């Protein structure tokens, strides 16, 4: 019976225009952030993604202040500019002072977020309660998506994927072995800037559905989950996109069932659940598999203890 209920809800969703947009918008976000999140994780920049997302908030406020529209394109542009700016500030702090990266990230994300809050509350106080709609960018409110938003998100996501496909091998090599890439004559600086820009776009796509506060999870969780199932970068990116897209769709559907629930938290919980499943059950790397392996190895070891695996001999070097 419960299954029938769920099914009827999903049938209802497909018939419902708003929900179709909700699902579509969340899926676009999940797919894009899933793919690009792989690079964030592999470059050990997970929390850099967090700082980028938080730093985008003042951009939304300023864009609204200047344009006066809630049209998604200018807001996303403002957000992207500030996310970029936040990233540069973080790098500048670590490069020119003795402050370490974690504190630099903390400074950027909290100060920019504070500035964003100042701007949002300013808009509220000058424009009255009706301007409160910008709050939805904090935790995401996918039900507010309209058709033009979906088209904008789709175009941006397509742009991300075109860049990712065209520069795939360059992104891969600068991520894996930056100095080797540079020795091949690749402009690593520009490639890194390009990759960061694409990640910024992915973050901005997530503003509507997940919001700035929790966006980091959509960059990391699907990518780490995908990493558990494969040892190949291409497969990892594809799987991560699927996981991200699924989290987006499932999360937004669940959140739309309850009144006034933000989409972001539910999508994040879904993505984390997929990660949990992957950590436990993935073949070869999962906890359960490893546990059974250990048990079996123990038995084998007890059975025969005669052969000692040949260790590689280290050649003596004196320094």
């Amino acid at each position: 019976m419960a299954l029938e209920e769920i099914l009827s809800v999903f049938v209802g969703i497909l018939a419902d225009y708003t929900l179709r947009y909700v699902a579509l918008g969340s899926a676009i976000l999940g797919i894009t952030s899933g793919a690009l999140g792989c690079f964030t994780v592999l470059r050990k920049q997970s929390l850099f993604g967090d700082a980028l997302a938080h730093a985008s908030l003042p951009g939304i406020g300023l864009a609204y202040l200047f344009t006066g529209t809630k049209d998604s394109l200018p807001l996303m542009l403002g957000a992207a500019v500030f996310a970029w700016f936040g990233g540069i500030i973080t790098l500048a702090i670590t490069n020119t002072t003795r402050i370490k990266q974690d504190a630099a990230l903390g400074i950027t994300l909290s100060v920019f977020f504070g500035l964003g809050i100042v701007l949002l509350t300013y808009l509220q106080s000058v424009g009255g309660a009706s301007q409160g709609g910008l709050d939805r960018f904090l935790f995401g409110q996918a039900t507010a998506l309209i058709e033009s938003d979906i088209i904008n998100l789709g175009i941006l996501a397509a742009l991300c994927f075109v860049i990712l496909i065209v520069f795939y091998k360059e992104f891969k090599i600068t991520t894996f072995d930056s100095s080797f890439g540079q020795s091949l004559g690749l402009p690593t600086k520009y490639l890194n800037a390009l990759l960061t820009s694409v990640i910024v776009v992915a973050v901005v796509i997530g503003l509507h559905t997940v919001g700035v506060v929790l966006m980091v999870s959509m960059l990391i969780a699907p990518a780490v989950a995908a990493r558990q199932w494969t040892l190949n970068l291409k497969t990892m990116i594809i799987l991560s996109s699927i996981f991200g897209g699924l989290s987006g769709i499932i999360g937004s559907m669940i959140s739309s069932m309850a009144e006034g629930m933000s989409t972001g938290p539910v999508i994040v919980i879904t993505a984390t659940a997929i990660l949990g499943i992957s950590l436990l059950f993935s073949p070869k790397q999962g906890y359960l598999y490893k546990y059974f392996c250990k048990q079996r190895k123990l038995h084998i070891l007890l059975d025969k203890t005669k052969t000692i695996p040949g260790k590689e001999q280290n050649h003596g070097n004196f320094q």
Partner: protein
Amino acid sequence: MEISNDLIIAGTAMLVAANCALIGVFLVLRQTAMMSDAISHTVLLGIVIAVLAVGSREPIPVIVSGVLSGILTISLVELLHRSGKLKQDSSIGIVFPFLFAIGVILVTQAASIHIDAQHVLYGSIEFAPFDTLYMDDLNMGSRSLWVLGILAIANILFIGLLYKELKVSTFDKSFALGVGLMPILVHYLLMIMVATTAVVAFESVGAILVIAFFIVPASAAYLLTDRLSKMLMLSVSLGVASSVAGYLFAIFADVSISGSMATTSGVIFGLIWVFAPNRGLVSRWKRISRHRFEIDLGIVLTHIRHEADAHRPVSALTLPDSLGWTKEYSKKLSEFIQEKKLVEKDTQGNFVLTDLGIKKAENYSGN
């Protein structure tokens, strides 16, 4: 007790900033800023659970539950990280959004909680004067001032009693381990103080902005001094100063007080970053260009000496090609070394090192 509302709010703001800035020094020095960010997010879950269980926002259960959720956060991050599958930063980036998301859903869905999403984001310091502490029906004044005051005493005691342990384990963890100062225990105690401070600060500034009060003044202080004790004092002073300035700006512009405080601390940090003596951008730039000039001077003198040994002439005209510098820069250096009497020109206009120049060149090349 008659204190004006404005003073209560300002006092609350200053106490929040002072508490956070004090603990924050160690977070900056120990590179645990983002871990503290994670904890300050996830105390929300603990707070919400305590409110659901007790039915009110009594400080003690809220603090206990918040601290427990902080410990849960650290343990989960460690568990994921230790498994070898995730790097520490990825583990942090997964654990805190997850626990925070649960907290946010509970806040928005459980009608009995009376915390709205805006409070989670930036607190409600504005209401500090209206929350009064009663003891046997006796009006004791603002509750937030009491709680924050007690917290301040706790934090000062914590740092005062464990000053030696904190200092040693911050600067040399393995040494601390060696002399039995239990750096791991110290770490957990510090994280418990972070969680406690975050829970108490949650009332005033919410779960996200609190990291600004922890990290920003402490980082600014780090650019001003090398001494731990001085850094603690500077951090607290800068924290209090930005809270006061932020509060005044918020009143003036009618915006969120906590947001304004965070922004102000950022502005103060920015000023110190640019203008700090020795470590600021300006003096750094000056120092680097001075050093570069010194080094380039040495390069030129060594070059002239080396070429003289090989009987190859060097003049202002050959420098750009042989050293790869611009003509202007080569000319500037050529003039400088002549002016300082490090070289003289021979009859063909080529450089010959003077005795002073030879001495200086030897200084650089060491042979």
